[in-house]
């Protein structure tokens, strides 16, 4: 039921138009951070205000929305954002990856490959990949403009020098179409390869930092690395204890105080889909499927 007091998808039309313009510019210049006039949203910064504004600007009444947080549809953040749009836009929602036309995500890319016509919206805390080494915004913008990305490798160098390997495991920097270096948001580096050549549109929104950026379908996205320390998408060395999947990203769940733990797919829809099809993991409850 739509709350009639709100404009469709909460934001007023002028704001949505402003954000769409920024998004179009972002799509035209893949990986480039486009400033936009981020609005106050009825949720705190850090809870997805950037992603919500991008989603609001993209939604049409015919869309079906899926919201995930760390891969799960049933966590607080995902549930409240989904409810937010049910109430303010009245759009259909789903937990099925394949059934959604717009997917807002925090920290994951769904395991099931997305298709043309779908939009994946990322929530981004800090859009500037160079920030931690160069605090001056004026300087990082110049570095992007002039493609001076040596500093990005300094960060990776420091990783290898300190840990013997590139220890960055999430928000792993990428180069887009051989041009802009981009922060893919805090997705695990396991998901990095999915960024490249994706059929869906990928949009990134940072509310507090007032930036959006984008990857058009089938963009070439390369994870930065060294020749002798190549990029490796890593995950826990286990199969999913519920569905038995060997190639999906896993969460570690502590099950008791005696050190018991299990590994389960972080993508709840993917895991449920496999179990529905009869796949079973080590600890799958008896009688399921």
């Amino acid at each position: 039921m739509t709350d009639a007091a709100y404009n469709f998808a909460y934001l007023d039309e002028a704001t949505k138009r402003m954000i769409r313009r920024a998004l179009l510019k972002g799509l035209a210049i893949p990986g480039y951070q486009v400033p936009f006039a981020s609005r106050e949203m009825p949720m705190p910064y850090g809870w997805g205000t950037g992603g919500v504004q991008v989603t609001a600007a993209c939604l049409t009444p015919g869309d079906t929305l899926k919201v995930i947080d760390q891969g799960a549809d049933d966590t607080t953040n995902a549930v409240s954002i989904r409810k937010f749009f049910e109430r303010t836009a009245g759009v259909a929602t789903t937990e099925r990856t394949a059934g959604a036309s717009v997917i807002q995500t925090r920290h994951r890319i769904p395991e099931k490959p997305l298709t043309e016509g779908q939009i994946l919206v990322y929530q981004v805390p800090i859009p500037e990949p160079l920030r931690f080494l160069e605090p001056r915004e004026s300087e990082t913008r110049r570095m992007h403009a002039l493609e001076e990305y040596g500093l990005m490798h300094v960060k990776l160098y420091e990783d290898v020098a300190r840990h013997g390997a590139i220890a960055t495991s999430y928000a792993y920097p990428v180069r887009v179409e051989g041009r802009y270096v981009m922060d893919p948001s805090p997705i695990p580096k396991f998901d990095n390869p999915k960024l490249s050549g994706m059929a869906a549109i990928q949009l990134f929104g940072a509310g507090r930092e007032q930036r959006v950026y984008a990857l058009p379908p089938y963009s070439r996205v390369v994870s930065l690395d060294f020749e002798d320390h190549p990029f490796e998408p890593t995950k826990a060395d286990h199969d999913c204890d519920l569905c038995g999947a060997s190639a999906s990203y896993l969460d570690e769940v502590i099950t008791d105080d005696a050190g018991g733990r299990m590994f389960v797919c972080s993508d709840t829809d993917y895991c449920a889909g496999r179990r529905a099809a009869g796949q079973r993991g080590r600890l799958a409850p008896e009688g399921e499927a």
Partner: protein
Amino acid sequence: MTAFDRTLTASADAPLLSVQDLTKRYGRRIGCERVSFDLWPGEVLGIVGESGSGKSTLLGCLAGHLAADEGQILYRGHDILAMSEPERRLLSRTEWAFVHQNPRDGLRMGVSAGGNVGERLMAIGARNYGAIRNAASDWLTKVEIDPGRIDDRPRAFSGGMQQRLQIARNLVTAPRLVFMDEPTGGLDVSVQARLLDLLRGLVRDMGLSVVIVTHDLAVARLLADRLMVMKDGRVIETGLTDQVLDDPQAAYTQLLVSSVLQV
């Protein structure tokens, strides 16, 4: 650097840097005015003068940190002031180097010694960690820092070591032209001597051309081939270093030389 290498043959016996009537004003105040000189490959030019004489302004204009108002700077025949910013910045991190008086201005204090030295290599496309690390280690040795400290941050280094690290970071890409702003200022006398010796060796072995700003005439005597004396933004006197110091012609230079304890 292919764009520059193409003209290399023509410049074998030409000045590396040729400055004509360089002027920089701060509103109505003069920063430096109508400064002209040529710098040849392998030559060290000292710019001396008191605080406020315009020597740092001149250095800033030459290195592209400040925008000159008038004049021309030719580097290997290329008009620096007409260059686009990307070209100029590429020059600054390949063929040029800048050694700041305060190493904190020239180093990344939060990055290890190896990362500091390796940055310029990575900036021009080095992507092999092992090779970058070896180069960094070599350079630490060259500037007399124990390579075992390659993973330490500059904060853990003494002032003299930080300055030597800054020099390594600058020279790792084998630049041709180095700008130095009071590189030995703020260091103890014994540490200064060590740094001077190191710089002299590097200048000779790498064939560096150097523009060094200093108010210390003893430093100028030991490092510079030629001197340029500045006062109130203008060049008062130029010449061979020992000639300017031992037989100064201009009234100001005579005063400057005679006010210094024996150099």
